[in-house]
């Protein structure tokens, strides 16, 4: 069946053609609105993904730790507390109890992508006269690289870690004056120092991390930090970073553990990102309302202009529902056509953005992914907005009294 032979479509398209200037103006208006929404959405999604990627570059979305040690208050025979003041207990470096079992349990969760054990503790890196305070991270490279993309951040050397290997950041390498295959000494407060060979140098693009983190094999860290067979934390990668908090809650239910999600540990950043999402949503809503009002105003004028024609159509047997559909089709068409044009506009601008927004080294400022689904959603959304916007003028047209409309 040819939809363009239907009474409603024939009349709707002829009405739009009759007021071509009006129709084109509103279609361009919708195109600009839809273009702005698509362009901004793609840009902000790219920016957001970039910030998240950079944040989660060197931080696991979820960290599972041993619970805090708490001081137990003295109690009398009748279980009443007798200590006037309970001093918080100092937290000693200790392993996560039964971490292997917990690891297996976490890996079973469907939202979890990867789990890796880590031994972390403070230490000193020495070379010659230079000494720097560092954070020692003992890792299992094969599983750790699934959580943190350290392997991709290597700027020199290799990512494999033997018992005597260490991977350092670019800042620490500069401070200690070391290159790949040079030796450095790592020491902790509890054990004697150990001499290790620099197997690789990484750059996370973060000065603090490049200066502080040193990566050694898990067993090496266990030995250095006097935690034989232990792991101070389990780093967890999740499929949806925004679901980290709910997954953390599920992990808390697995045993006596402390679980920190990146959402909590980066609360300020997350608040800023939520504000950005809210601002983007508000802009989209207001642009959508503006588009809807534009379509509605054009159709209201059209109903007034064509009231006699509507009256005569009604007199010759056209039902109210048919008149209603004539104007709903116009609204939907204006919304859809405008959104298709807007999609093209946004696509061109996104390509231009890709070409223009670059770092001094020529790499993209951030990656903007042009998602086809965004265009489809925008087009369907604009068509719905157009139909909704046309509802009021369409009802007005359908309720016109033919006798009044004809005789003015």
């Amino acid at each position: 069946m040819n939809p363009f032979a239907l009474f409603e479509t024939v009349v709707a398209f002829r009405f739009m053609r009759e007021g071509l200037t009006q129709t084109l103006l509103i279609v361009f208006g919708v195109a600009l609105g839809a273009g702005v929404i698509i362009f901004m959405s793609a840009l902000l999604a790219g920016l957001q993904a970039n910030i998240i990627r950079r944040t989660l570059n060197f931080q696991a979305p979820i960290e599972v730790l041993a619970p805090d040690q708490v001081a137990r208050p003295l109690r009398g025979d009748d279980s009443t507390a007798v200590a006037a003041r309970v001093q918080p207990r100092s937290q000693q470096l200790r392993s996560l109890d039964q971490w292997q079992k917990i690891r297996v349990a976490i890996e079973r969760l469907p939202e979890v992508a990867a789990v890796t054990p880590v031994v972390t503790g403070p230490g000193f890196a020495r070379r010659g006269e230079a000494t720097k305070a560092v954070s020692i991270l003992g890792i299992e490279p094969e599983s750790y690289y699934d959580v943190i993309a350290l392997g991709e951040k290597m700027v020199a050397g290799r990512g494999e870690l033997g018992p005597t290997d260490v991977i350092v950041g670019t800042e620490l390498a500069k401070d200690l004056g070391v290159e790949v295959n040079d030796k450095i000494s790592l020491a902790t407060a509890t054990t004697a120092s150990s001499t290790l060979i620099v197997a690789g140098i990484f750059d996370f693009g973060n000065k603090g991390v490049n200066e502080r983190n040193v990566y050694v094999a898990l067993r090496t860290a266990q030995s250095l930090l006097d935690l034989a067979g232990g792991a101070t934390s389990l780093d967890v990668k999740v499929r949806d970073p925004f679901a980290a908090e709910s997954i953390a809650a599920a992990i808390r239910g697995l045993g006596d553990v402390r679980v920190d999600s990146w959402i909590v540990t980066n609360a300020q950043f997350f608040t800023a990102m939520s504000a950005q999402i809210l601002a983007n949503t508000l802009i989209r809503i207001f642009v959508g309302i503006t588009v809807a009002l534009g379509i509605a105003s054009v159709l209201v004028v059209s109903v007034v202009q064509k009231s006699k024609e509507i009256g005569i159509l009604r007199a010759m047997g056209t039902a109210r529902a048919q008149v209603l559909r004539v104007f709903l089709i116009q609204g939907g068409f204006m919304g859809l056509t405008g959104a298709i044009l807007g999609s093209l506009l946004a696509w061109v601008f996104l390509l231009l953005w890709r070409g223009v927004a670059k770092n001094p080294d020529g790499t993209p400022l951030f990656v903007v992914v042009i998602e086809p689904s965004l265009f489809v959603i925008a087009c369907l959304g604009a068509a719905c907005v157009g139909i909704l916007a046309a509802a009021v003028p369409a009802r007005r047209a359908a309720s016109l009294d033919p006798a009044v409309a004809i005789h003015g």
Partner: protein
Amino acid sequence: MDERAVAGETLRLAGVRKSYGAGTPVETEVLHGIDLVLRRGEFAALIGPSGSGKTTLLNVIGLLDRPSAGTIVVAGQEAGALSEIEATRLRGRAIGFVFQYHHLLPAFTALENVMMPVLAARGRADDQMRATAAALLDRVGLTAWRDHKASDISGGQQQRVAIARSLAMSPALVLADEPSGNLDTGNADAVFDLMRNVNATSGTTFLIVTHDPRLAQRCDRIVTLVDGRIVADEINRDVLRAG
């Protein structure tokens, strides 16, 4: 077929009243109990001074407006009990309209304007619809103008297209409200002759509101309305003798 409908009758009005502002202090009754029967094939004129209620009566007969009281039977169907949707369907099927101003849709061609009532009734265009509309345009002498926009043809031609459009659904009754009011004498006569010809060949009943006594005298029957009442309803013997 309604029980009260009588064979051969196209229209029956019984005690039709129409008031505006009902239930308010300014309630005004415009039609005061109209009784009127039009038989199939009649060609009647409705005359009367301005403000006598002619247009109101035409709106009520054409189901564009509902009476405050009384019975209306159109093409054998009582219209009073019909819902708005049913009344619209009956109007589309049984009644054709010709107005003083042609009220053609300017964005459409003459042919499309004639097709419009059938398109509205059937929902979608087809070749048979086009052929019927073309035949109607041929009948009103506008074959050469069928693909011209309604806005691109003369006033007389526009009114002839409007007549063709009023016949598109082969209605039992055509209501014409001052169909020649906007035309010069020559075009007025041509339009009138056209309606007479349709009446004679197809048996369609016509009720024509006119202020022109010359045209009224050419109708079979003259109904005179004054202050919302039919004061005269005469058979025009001269026309019948000439016919």
